[in-house]
């Protein structure tokens, strides 16, 4: 019984990844838009995008870590 609750809990926690997917899409959309607008500072824009991607990915993976935590302990 407890094991089945763990599985359902882990399944629920994985839904948190949806937000990270939307966030990363938005960051790269902004990169593409702003590179078209101002291609001269491509490098600086790309470094900000990579930073934004990593921070958004972190939140998504917090949810995944929570799912693993629920599943295995």
């Amino acid at each position: 019984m407890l094991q089945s609750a763990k599985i359902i809990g882990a399944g629920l926690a994985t839904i948190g990844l949806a937000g990270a997917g939307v966030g990363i899409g938005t960051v790269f959309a902004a990169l593409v838009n702003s590179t078209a607008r101002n291609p001269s500072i491509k490098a600086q824009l790309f470094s900000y995008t990579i930073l934004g991607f990593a921070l958004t990915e972190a939140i998504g993976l917090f949810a995944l870590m929570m799912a693993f935590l629920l599943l295995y302990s």
Partner: protein
Amino acid sequence: MTTFINTVFINNPLEQFEIKEFFYMGGPLLGAKFSLTNIGLYLIIVTILVLGMSYLSLNNNKVVPSRWSIVQESLFGSILNMIKSTIGGKGEAYLPFLYTIFLYVLLSNLIGLVPYSFTPSSHFVFGIGFSVAILIGVTILGFQTHALKFFGLFVPAGTPLGLVPVLVMIETISYLARALSLGLRLTANMIGGHVLLKIFSTFTWKAVIGGPILLLISIIPFAFIIAFTGLEIAIAFIQAYVFTMLTASYLNDAINLH
């Protein structure tokens, strides 16, 4: 079809992170307990790699740089630029510290991609140990340079008076959460990436030995694994860069107080 699929997982995909002891010395008599585990071994290997790389690029102090020293100098230069843009002049004192962090985290991420190897940075002890130590160091630095003015960090400039108590509470929580989020970000990325690789490689292996038709179908997951390994290498670089970048911005908070 279903019987074929549910034999996919012979053992748990999380097994790759288990710590196995190689040999164990000492006992109750000696008191001191020493055991070399696989995470210990891989940390030693990464340290040897970092030192070896620096030694190689030393090029016994010839004026003309060898290829290795060019690699190290360009890496040094890029981190120096990053520090200059994040912290400004005063941050250059922390260049060796940040350079070592970047190289160490990068090599421990990359060493995990070698087949049959172990990723030290996929363990929470590695990531969170680093980040808590960094945060304590930065806080001590902040107090040392700014004494009591350091608390000004928790009140962003130009907030209306009424909002201050709420904002201070939120800012302190987010400042303390930095200790966990910095390390957890690195470790969670490594764990997630490797578990995904493990699952897809088991899936493809089952498809390959599953029979002629499945052999043809297995090209798709195999191509995906190649693409994902490339992505995993990129993520190893990105995580090392972001870890150093955030450490630099935390140092900036301690030195320049916003």
